């Protein structure tokens, strides 16, 4: 149960250059007009920093991209303010490739209305980190312009199914930079990020039934956390990362248990006659939301992490699944099944108001971005599973269609500790 297994399967974890087709619909009430000028020296580097930054900002729905129309300033002294009517923000910079593969990126963000510099920074990195730098620049711009933390540098995890091949994948928040953590001919399910973003717990059927593993992203070492008879599944981390909630069928029905992250001190939390599954911790670590059919249909319930009486939270639609707390703990997002369609919905704890965020279809497994502004979920396009996001007010939607495979079980990772 606590045996450490080294993974030899994945010698090559190179960056796959996934071709994504990104489609954005809807817009925020006010879109800030921004011009992103191509950085000087971009042609010499493998990655196009300015377009990565522009795409990141566009995906939020909060910005309107203005074409620089041939103008290409790279420093404040080269900017003639009168030449940029209607542009409120200008982003520009330079990329210098040094001998030995290092890259120096300088960038500036200008407030074109007040005619002031908002940000001026220099970043040095290896040439293979340019995408990461671009996401970091987008984060800084987003934070400065909206007051909220940017999530472009965070990562997501999901399962990609191609024929009989299942891969557990970690990628940048925009779906690029795929890295395969586990490849298997048996299903993989329910990836869950540790709060520090260094480990992923997941369900793998590689031993011909559902077992829970915890794997380090850096060392690729992994721990078989639960292999009791029947199914072991639905791992969720406590906010301090010391404990996980799991679902086991070792006593019959699927019930929720807690276990330490090293596999010790397993104990049962829920005691019902029905199915209790998909536990998720509240941000303060005191409560669990979970899915149960104890009332006849699958609905979302809330219980103290110590167990006891559970409170039913959802009453609308035929059934509701896969709850996840918002980062501020004031609401939760879930998959809402009604009239034969799945929708992504949020419910406010205080008002109990339910808001359907999407137009419906095959939409499952929502999770909040760590800033609470976006929700990532699994949708479908052209008969394949895809990644999709919706802003937490439901206004801006985005679909990311990968070239290959069926994307399932996405989950948004935490902020990266710098």
């Amino acid at each position, binding site marked *: 149960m606590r045996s450490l297994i080294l993974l030899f399967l994945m010698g090559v974890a190179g960056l796959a250059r996934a071709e994504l087709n990104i489609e954005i619909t809807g817009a925020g009430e006010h879109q800030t007009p921004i011009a992103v000028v191509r950085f000087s020296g971009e042609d010499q580097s493998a990655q196009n920093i300015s377009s990565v930054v522009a795409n990141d900002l566009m995906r939020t729905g909060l910005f309107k991209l203005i074409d620089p129309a041939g103008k290409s300033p790279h420093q404040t002294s080269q900017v003639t303010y009168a030449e940029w009517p209607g542009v409120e923000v200008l982003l520009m910079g330079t990329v210098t490739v040094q001998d030995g593969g290092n890259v120096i990126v300088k960038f500036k963000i200008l407030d074109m209305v007040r005619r002031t510099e908002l940000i001026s920074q220099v970043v040095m990195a290896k040439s293979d980190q340019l995408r990461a730098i671009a996401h970091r620049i987008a984060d800084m711009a987003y934070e400065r312009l909206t007051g909220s933390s940017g999530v472009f540098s965070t990562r997501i995890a999901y399962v990609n199914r191609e024929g009989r091949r299942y891969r557990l994948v970690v990628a940048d928040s925009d779906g690029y930079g795929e890295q395969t953590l586990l490849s298997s001919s048996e299903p993989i399910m329910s990836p869950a990020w540790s709060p520090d973003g260094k480990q992923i717990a997941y369900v793998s059927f590689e031993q011909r039934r559902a077992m829970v593993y915890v794997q380090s992203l850096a060392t690729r070492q992994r721990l078989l956390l639960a292999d009791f008879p029947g199914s072991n599944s639905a791992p969720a981390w406590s906010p301090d990362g010391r404990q996980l909630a799991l679902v086991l069928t070792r006593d019959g029905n699927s019930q929720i248990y807690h276990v330490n992250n090293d596999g010790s001190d397993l104990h049962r939390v829920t005691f019902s006659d029905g199915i209790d599954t998909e536990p998720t911790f509240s941000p303060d670590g005191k409560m669990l939301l979970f899915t149960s059919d104890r009332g006849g249909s699958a609905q979302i319930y809330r219980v103290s992490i110590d167990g006891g009486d559970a409170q039913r939270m959802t009453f609308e639609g035929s059934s509701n*699944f896969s709850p996840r707390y918002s980062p501020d703990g004031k609401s939760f997002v879930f998959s809402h099944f009604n009239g*034969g369609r799945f929708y992504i919905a949020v419910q406010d704890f205080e008002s109990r108001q339910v808001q359907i965020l999407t137009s419906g279809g095959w939409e499952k497994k929502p999770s909040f971005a760590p800033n609470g502004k976006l929700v990532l979920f699994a949708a479908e396009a052209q008969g394949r599973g895809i990644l999709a996001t919706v802003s937490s007010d439901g206004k801006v939607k985005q679909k990311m269609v990968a070239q290959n495979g069926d994307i399932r*079980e996405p989950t948004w990772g935490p902020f990266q500790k710098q």
Partner: protein
Amino acid sequence: MKKLILSLTVSSLLVACGSSPQKETVVEPKQSSIAPTQQAASAPVADKSSAQANADAKAIAAAAAAAASARAQADANATASAKAKAAAEAEAAARAAAEAQALADATSNRALKNRSVYFPFDIDAVQQADKETILAHGQNLADNPNLKVRVEGNADERGSSEYNLALGQRRANNTKKGLVLGGARSAQIEAVSYGEEKPKAVGHDEAAWAQNRRADIEYTRGN
């Protein structure tokens, strides 16, 4: 005869072996109207074999009764002619019994060949239509203590993957209970679930879903 009684006992027990709480009446008109059709469509083989098995069981019973009465008659009658007649009758009856047994064996093999049982939407109780299949496998496991099976529960894609994993596990657990009631030992059976992860049929329609709401009985040793 013993088989027949066992089958009657088990059939009444099977009703009790679906441990699921009473489900709400299905909210969606689409599903409730489709579900019964699916059930009928998904298990035509099981229906046929169950009717066949009943007929065959009656044949065995009749033949066995005939053989017994013929034997009794032979003992009672002292005359050689009567003895010869009775012997001929007994022989005929034995032949009939053997034929019936062969037929029953063939039927039971047919039931054994069927290794999948099906469930309505969001239901995990074993269905009447699959009783014969489960009994045959339970009996087969009882007759062959060295055999082992894996019961793999599955679910259609309506629901979350985790909910469906749980539902598939309940379907597997209930199928296992049925096998045990049919005579198998619990240690001969491993119940696992694949949830919605290994669909037999792909497609967002009842035709595909009906095939995926399933438990498979897989022999892992011998047979």
